[in-house]
């Protein structure tokens, strides 16, 4: 199908984008790899698209103050090529090849994935697992929101209609940081049926500050807090059993809740193995 008619404006700056978003039914256009598909299918029909591609300074990958900062317009392919990202955010580097296909990664953006907040998407779970934070600019100025508070419901985030996500920050990895990532998809590049992103600090046999963020099992990335406690003490099987308490996946077109919970356990064993080794 073809999109319903809309007006288009190219924002010159973040402030200009916020100004343009004052119009009713205006939507931000970043990489467009989800938005334009929904326009083509007429699942959405905005009055105005505000194109933020090309706004200066939003496409940078910068290390600062023990963090790695990714501008919202950093494209997946650009992130994949970044040695800085591979070194300081190895979890994101592990996840990137699973996102869509090369042609999608050439265009899709980090900020777009987070703002869209698809429950089966890889990056939201990674940012939750890393305890990252997101910078948002809006009509009232700038604010920073933690990843835990950012994802609020199905395709629902802390972003208000006139807000622009400008950057994300994750703590930079050091030699003691362990990460793990695994997902099940029917075909490489498809959205995951179930996926898991994990990050921890190695403390002898223990894993300190372990965060397990599952995706594809609920409306937002889901922290498996009981499993985290068990796995922190190196008890993988207890962690797998604890998933029954942590996860309550809805049935979808791919699988029943029981199958999804089973797959989550399989992924947890794989990720536990990754976490037991230096990344």
């Amino acid at each position, binding site marked *: *199908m*073809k*999109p*319903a*008619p*809309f*007006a*288009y*404006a190219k924002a010159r700056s973040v402030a200009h984008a916020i100004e*343009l978003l004052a*119009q009713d039914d205006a939507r931000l*256009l970043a990489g*467009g*790899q989800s938005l*334009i*598909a929904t*326009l*083509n*299918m007429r699942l959405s029909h905005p009055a*105005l*698209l505000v*194109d933020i*591609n090309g706004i200066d300074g939003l496409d940078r990958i910068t290390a600062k103050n023990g963090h790695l900062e990714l501008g919202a317009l950093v494209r997946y*392919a650009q992130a994949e090529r970044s040695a800085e990202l591979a070194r300081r955010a190895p979890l994101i580097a592990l996840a990137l*090849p699973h996102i*869509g*296909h*090369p*042609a*999608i990664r*050439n*265009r899709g953006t980090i900020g777009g994935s987070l703002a869209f907040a698809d429950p089966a998407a890889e990056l939201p779970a990674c940012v939750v697992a890393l305890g990252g934070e997101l910078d948002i600019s809006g009509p009232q100025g700038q604010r920073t929101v933690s990843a835990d508070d950012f994802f609020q419901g199905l395709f629902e985030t802390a972003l208000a209609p006139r807000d622009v996500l400008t950057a994300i920050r994750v703590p930079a990895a050091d030699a003691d940081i362990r990460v793990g990532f695994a997902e099940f998809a029917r*075909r*490489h*590049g498809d959205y995951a049926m179930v996926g898991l992103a994990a990050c921890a600090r190695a403390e002898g046999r223990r894993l300190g500050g372990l965060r397990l963020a599952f995706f594809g099992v609920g409306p937002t990335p889901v922290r498996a807090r009981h499993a985290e406690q068990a796995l922190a003490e190196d008890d993988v099987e207890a962690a797998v059993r604890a998933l029954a308490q942590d996860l309550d996946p809805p049935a979808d077109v791919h699988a029943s809740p029981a199958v999804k919970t089973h797959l989550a356990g399989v992924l947890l064993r794989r990720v536990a193995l990754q976490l037991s080794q230096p990344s």
Partner: protein
Amino acid sequence: MSERFHDITVSVNGEEVRESVDARTTLVDFLRETAGLTGSHVGCEHGVCGACSVRVDGAVVRGCLMLAVQCHGTRVDTIEGVADSGEIADLQQAFVARNALQCGFCTPGMLLSAQELLAAGGVPSREAIRVHLSGNYCRCTGYQAIVDAVEAVAKARAGAAR
């Protein structure tokens, strides 16, 4: 300016094209219907099939997931352009030699995606070739010969580069 219609200038296969476009026109529809280049195919129109693959400023993208208006000031290369320039002559020859297609609808996208992988250099593993082409899978399952063709060209180019 928040308007529906915009004047754009795009370099299509090295030739300057100036048009007024409706904002809702996708890049692939612009190429097919305005520029008359029908080698880029329209399949699923939601980014899954890869038949509409084209290059924008050197990167292969989905022609159905980018708007023509966004291409103002860019260079767009289509299958017609890379075929005419000879850039993928060896790849085309390998596809013909191995009959690396069934209906051929996916072929223009397959060629552009394969060329992007090959242009990165080296000889990718068959697994890497499959992963790279995963965004162009359609439904015929005739991929064995496509992987053979891409692998053969990678080896030939690596040999020639030595």
